[in-house]
């Protein structure tokens, strides 16, 4: 399997600010790659360099074997793009826009079918400036598909969409993957990345801080699985002194870290033996979102501390 996208040592500076600061990653053909990061992390900057819309300061970038900046025209025939905040001609209508793109790309899209795919059929004949934010985004996706691209760049495609529309877009992305297309996705919805992406990278202040499948990242950076049980503080004290396990409490809920699967049995036995009343137990494990918030939060705290010390 060859790489559809390959990035080595990518740097983009806006004056003093290094918005992208030495980024490396590859996306194998046919995979869904999710690029995550807080606001201002450098996601859009990276995507737009890959699309050939911005010029990089340094590094090597190849998309489908082409240099996006100098071979943009050739590349654009083979990629589809939804920019963050997609906009179009105010008085143009979705069905018209799809036919227009069809002529430009020399493909023959069926507007009715394409609008149904992104769930925008009812607005086929509405002027663009009357569409809601989410409806505009859906048209953006439909237009990105007109060229039957090998690689799709979707910069926050589901931001501002209602839950059912979001699931509709997920469906489209899954279909694209099953058709063998490569999808590069940025999103602020970590469950979306977890559900859809083969590979995930988290970027923060222009640097990649975690990379891999979402379970890899959770295993590498998340906390271990925990047993959660409702009980009084005395139960926490009992477990701490008898089992030497870390226990955290939060308003009557105890979380006991489980380092091995065997720990679960030991903890449950100890709870039973304590004779202290308890209820509602279960296990919890970190989601990608927990890991993300933890990592980004930690780094920001470290940064604040670093700035305080001279």
């Amino acid at each position: 399997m060859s790489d559809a996208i390959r990035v080595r040592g990518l740097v983009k500076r806006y004056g003093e600010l290094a918005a992208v600061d030495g980024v490396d990653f590859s996306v194998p053909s046919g995979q869904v790659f999710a690029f995550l990061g807080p606001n201002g992390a450098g996601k859009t900057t990276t995507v737009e360099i890959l699309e050939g819309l911005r010029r990089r300061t340094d590094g090597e970038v190849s998309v489908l074997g082409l240099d996006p900046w100098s071979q943009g025209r050739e590349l654009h025939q083979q990629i589809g793009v939804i920019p963050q905040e997609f906009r179009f001609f105010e008085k143009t209508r979705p069905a018209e826009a799809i036919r227009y793109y069809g002529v430009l790309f020399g493909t023959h899209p069926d507007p009715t079918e394409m609008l149904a795919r992104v769930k925008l059929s009812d607005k086929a004949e509405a002027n663009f400036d009357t569409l809601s934010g989410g409806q505009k985004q859906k048209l953006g996706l439909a237009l990105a598909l007109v060229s039957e691209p090998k690689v799709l760049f979707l910069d926050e495609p589901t931001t501002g969409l209602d839950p059912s529309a979001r699931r509709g877009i997920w469906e489209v992305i899954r279909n694209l993957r099953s058709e063998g297309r490569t999808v590069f996705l940025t999103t602020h919805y970590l469950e979306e990345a977890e559900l859809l992406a083969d590979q995930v990278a988290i970027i923060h202040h222009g640097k990649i801080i975690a990379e891999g499948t979402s379970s890899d990242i959770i295993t590498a950076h998340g906390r271990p699985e925990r047993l959660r049980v409702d009980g009084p503080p005395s139960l926490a004290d009992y477990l701490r002194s008898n089992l030497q396990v870390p226990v955290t409490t939060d308003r009557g809920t105890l979380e006991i870290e489980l380092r091995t699967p065997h720990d679960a049995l030991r903890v449950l036995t100890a709870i039973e033996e304590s004779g202290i009343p308890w209820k509602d137990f279960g296990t919890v494990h970190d989601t990608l979102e927990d890991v993300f918030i933890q990592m980004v939060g930690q780094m920001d705290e470290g940064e604040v501390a670093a700035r305080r010390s001279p």
Partner: protein
Amino acid sequence: MNPRRVAADFGVFSRGYLRNPFGLFFSLIFPLILIGIFGLIYSNSAAPTITVYAENLDHQSNASVAFLAALNGTGAVTVQVIDPSVVGNFSQWLGQNGDPAGLVIPAGFGAAYANKTPLNVTVFVNPEDQLSSGVTEGSVQGVANAFNLRAAGGRPFIGVHANGLGSTLFNNIDYLIPGLIGFTIVTSPMFAMVEISSTYKKERLFRQLSLTPLTKGEWLLSKILFYIALTFVSAAMMIGFGTVVFHAHVTLNIAVLPFLFVGPLFFVSLGMLAGSVAKTPESAGVIGNIITFPMMFLSGTFFPVSSFSPALKTFAHILPLFYVIDGMNQVLLFGNLGRAAVDLAIVFVGASLLFVAAIVAFKWRDE
């Protein structure tokens, strides 16, 4: 250049345009309103008929009747014979009536003419209205001279064939139509392209287009074709409106068509260039206005350049619109195709340079 892509872009752009009532009003209806306004102004001030009220105190004589008929026949004035018994004091009556020109043919006019004895007709004019008093006096004098010559047995040998420039006498409204066609050729594309170039940049529509196979040249060409089409529609409406409502005389000649092609080519490119070199939408608007406003008024749109002072005339000659309007005047009014061809060549060369410059200057994506 892929004609299918140009056609597709033309289709999308023109449908969008037709859905925008403001743009349509500005480019199609507004010029008609201007024709209406100027037409009304001109039809009041340029009324060629000065009414001369005539008291014929010798109405039995053929000579007096012939004299009044000849005066009327000059076309410069309209003679209206009135009954002295109704009027009373003629001079007072003229004053009250507000129509100051009057003529009294005294009793014995016929006899005096037959006998060649001297006799005066009396002309009343309002000295404050120099035009009508001059015309009235001149016409009466002219007719009197002709009668004197005839009575003396002479034959006139110097004739005057009245002619404006060109082949017909023109009204101001006739000049106005090529001027206003020129006006729309400059204003519609200039204002639109300056606006488009800055809003497309701001709304990131150029980047959106850069992601498609459409090229900058194809995009600009489609705008030019659109404004050519719009110019044709607008010119047809103006000529139709001017002809039907104000009886303008416009000689339709296909030699005017090249101007309707080259004009929009010039100004779409110029507007795009102006919008592209500007850093912000506000400065784009300012640059657009600086270019457009002098041309709107000083290229022969509303006022003929021939009436300008020498300095202003020189200035008019550096305005590209001058050559468009002058060329159309040469074709539509004077039939001077040679000079029109020179005008056309000047505009065409300028337009071609601007087209290339605009394509180079405007950026699909930010560097």
